[in-house]
């Protein structure tokens, strides 16, 4: 019964989405007030039905209803409850439903929080969100229905959720990531509305900024969580593999970050308007592209659930329609956007422009590396894969100038700035960074010269950035009578916090990639091995029973120069339903280093085990940095000016903005 309700709810949602899409758009074009007013209630209605569908699917998992195909293939009777509920998005159909649910959460938020927007603008934004919903609801209903039953001979037990996904990460990573992905739909809808209305000004940017920030916060957390999860769950200690699906989430992040910065310039100075619109379209297009890459199964990857050509074709057409029509609209309307605002060669505007270029180019480069194997297959150049060295090289080359300039960006004023002044302000930072970078690099006596250079460069950038950020924080919040600090707007603190986060992430990436010690060893019980100064004593293994698996647990006692450090208990698990083996690594975390032990396999003849023992310095800084970035975003989005009544400002500023910038 419940699945049928869910199924019905999806159909209702599609019907309402169609209304939400067409009626307000036509109403706005023909000045029919009542039609325009449909947008809000339709959005709420669609949300309610999609929520019913989502809860129905979760309920089917909760109630172990194996007559539902999707539940039968992704759950198991003894699967713990948290994973059973998370299994709702543990496969193609459910993940798609989560996507749609998130889109509705954002649409609802826009309805509830944009009462101050002009009614026509608000109606158009909601209509475009409804249009996106139409596409995805049709996709799920016609190609990937999660409520399909297997009757009458349904299985007594499910095939179980892929053991890789039976983890806390599965509970939070996909919702976070999807909230981020889908959140760019709001900026996209605002951009299309602006193109339709032909009005792009500072006020538009002010509306879009908090929504973009919101999406960015979720996406930052989602990507970081994914990386952290891969690190501890996949059992080989890597935190980023340049896997196509990782790239699919990283490209929208890069474009979204660029968008945040260009929005700042558009809001404060009224510049880069067309570019900002283009980025808003691009950020969401990359999200869609990511969805296509993942859902169509064109790429072989751990994340690809589907291998159905109909699905691929459907998403590809949808992708083509959305991106194609937006770009056509852009081409016709963007030329009417006037260029305004003067700025000097040396100004904050210029630095933001460079920031945007570097971020966009790196997204394009990653896209190239990701799609290259597909093109090669289409053009019959053979089966190839593009290795991580490509991505690492590209990324290092493009990110080095970016991080360097991030230090300067906040200091430099809008319009113009004196080079001498900047030189004075950054001299001390440069000296400190050179010294600390040099010392760190020279201390690594065993490294190759190229490694030393990269460590030097990394530490230099980190010190440079942290120094300049702290200096700017102090200088700008210091009042004239020296001892008191004045309160700056939250967005100011948010920006600096996010930039410090970037510094930590860079530190983690550089130091953990160059200084990690990774050993694959053969160990015997009651013997100890030394890795990077730590003694790991292997006490042997024990068998145990989990809820839906049998396990083997090893015990390693770690000490450092005779002092006890930690007990590490890595596991191997064999899941009942699939018979699949899984490795659960044991990690002793600290900000300055992680100790990582994973059981490989028991070697034939005797009690020896193959184990991975890694010592990874500063690896945790990567996720700590990402956390700071997301926190910085939260600070920025809590800024008071976004909560002020926008309406009065809109009415007040409309006249002078139009007179200043004829569109």
């Amino acid at each position: 019964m419940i699945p049928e309700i869910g199924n019905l709810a999806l159909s209702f949602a599609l019907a309402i989405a169609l209304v939400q899409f067409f009626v307000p758009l036509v109403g706005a074009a023909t000045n029919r007030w009542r039609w325009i007013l449909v947008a809000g209630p339709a959005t709420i209605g669609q949300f309610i039905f999609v929520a019913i569908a989502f809860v129905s699917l979760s309920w089917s998992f909760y109630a172990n209803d194996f007559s539902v195909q999707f539940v039968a293939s992704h759950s198991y009777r003894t699967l713990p409850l948290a994973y059973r509920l998370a299994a709702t998005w543990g496969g193609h159909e459910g993940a798609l439903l989560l996507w749609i649910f998130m889109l509705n959460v954002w649409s609802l938020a826009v309805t509830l929080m944009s009462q101050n927007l002009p009614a026509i603008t608000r109606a158009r934004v909601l209509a475009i969100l409804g249009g996106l919903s139409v596409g995805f609801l049709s996709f799920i209903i016609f190609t990937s229905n999660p409520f399909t039953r297997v009757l009458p001979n349904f299985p007594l037990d499910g095939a179980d959720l892929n053991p890789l996904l039976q983890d806390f990460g599965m509970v939070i990573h996909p919702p976070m990531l999807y909230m981020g992905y889908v959140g760019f739909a709001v900026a996209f809808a605002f951009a299309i509305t602006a193109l339709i209305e032909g009005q792009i000004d500072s006020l538009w940017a002010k509306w879009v900024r908090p929504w973009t920030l919101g999406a960015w916060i979720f996406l930052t957390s989602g990507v970081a969580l994914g990386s952290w999860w891969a690190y501890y769950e996949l059992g080989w200690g890597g935190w980023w593999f340049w896997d196509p699906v990782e790239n699919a989430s990283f490209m929208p992040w890069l474009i979204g970050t660029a968008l945040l910065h260009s929005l700042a310039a558009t809001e404060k100075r009224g510049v880069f308007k067309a570019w900002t619109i283009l980025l808003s379209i691009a950020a969401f297009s990359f999200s869609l592209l990511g969805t296509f890459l993942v859902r169509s199964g064109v790429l072989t990857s751990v994340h690809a659930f589907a291998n159905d050509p109909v699905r691929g074709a459907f998403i590809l057409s949808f992708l083509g329609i959305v991106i194609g029509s937006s770009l056509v609209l852009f081409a016709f309307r963007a030329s009417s956007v006037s260029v305004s605002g003067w700025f000097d060669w040396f100004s904050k505007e210029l630095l933001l422009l460079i920031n945007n270029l570097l971020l966009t180019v790196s997204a394009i480069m990653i896209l190239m590396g990701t799609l290259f194997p597909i093109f090669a297959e289409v053009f019959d150049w053979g089966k190839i894969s593009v290795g991580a060295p490509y991505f690492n090289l590209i990324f290092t080359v493009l990110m080095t100038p970016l991080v360097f300039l991030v230090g300067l960006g906040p200091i430099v004023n809008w319009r113009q700035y004196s080079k001498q002044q900047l030189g004075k302000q950054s001299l001390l930072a440069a000296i400190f960074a050179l010294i600390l970078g040099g010392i760190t690099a020279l201390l690594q006596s065993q490294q190759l010269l190229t490694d030393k250079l990269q460590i030097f460069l990394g530490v230099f950038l980190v010190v440079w950035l942290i120094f300049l950020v702290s200096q700017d924080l102090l200088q700008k919040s210091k009042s004239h009578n020296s001892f008191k600090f004045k309160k700056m707007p939250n967005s100011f603190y948010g920006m600096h916090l996010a930039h410090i986060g970037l510094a930590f992430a860079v530190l983690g990436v550089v130091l953990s990639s160059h200084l990690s010690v990774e050993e694959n060893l053969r160990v015997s019980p009651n013997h100890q091995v030394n890795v990077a100064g730590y003694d790991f004593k292997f006490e042997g293994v024990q068998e145990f029973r989990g809820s839906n698996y049998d396990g083997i647990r090893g015990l390693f006692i770690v000490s450092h120069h005779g002092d006890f450090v930690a007990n590490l208990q890595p596991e191997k698990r064999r899941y009942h339903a699939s018979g699949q083996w899984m490795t659960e690594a044991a990690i002793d975390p600290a900000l300055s280093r992680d100790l990582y032990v994973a059981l490989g396999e028991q070697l034939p003849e005797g009690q020896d085990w193959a184990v991975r023992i890694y010592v990874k310095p500063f690896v945790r800084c990567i996720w700590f940095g990402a956390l700071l970035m997301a926190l910085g975003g939260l600070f920025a989005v809590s800024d008071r000016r976004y909560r002020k009544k926008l309406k009065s400002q809109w009415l007040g500023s409309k006249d002078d903005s139009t007179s200043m910038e004829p569109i």
Partner: protein
Amino acid sequence: MMKPQRKRRLIFVISIVLGLGVAIGLGLYAVKKNINLFYTPIEVARGKAPVGPLIRVGGLVVMGSVSRDPKSLKIQFKITDNAETIPVTFEGILPDLFREGQGIISMGHLRKDGLFEATEVLAKHDETYMSPEVAEAIKKAEAEAKARKGQ
């Protein structure tokens, strides 16, 4: 004489186009350098795979071919596309899904004597899954065998 603002915009556009061009050129070069081609056991056996560079080879692990060094983590096994088999060595820890009869992909270097030295062994997904590369390698070998029979 151009207006200063126009001139500035022109210089902007030119530098952006140049920058993009250089970046994409470098990118293409870097892609070319880092492409890892995939070869099937038949192709390796016929000498179509290059000796030296990093390549990927995939196939089924031959039943009973896995042998281990009792002292270290060195391991030897053979992979096949049901037409040709090639010997592979690897030192390290095999993935959880590595099993005799299972399809795997290994990344590494081909030696002159025909031994494949793997630096990485990949066996993804579940037991029923076979990576498209391996599936195609086997299909190709089968098609060839059929064609030969037909002659």
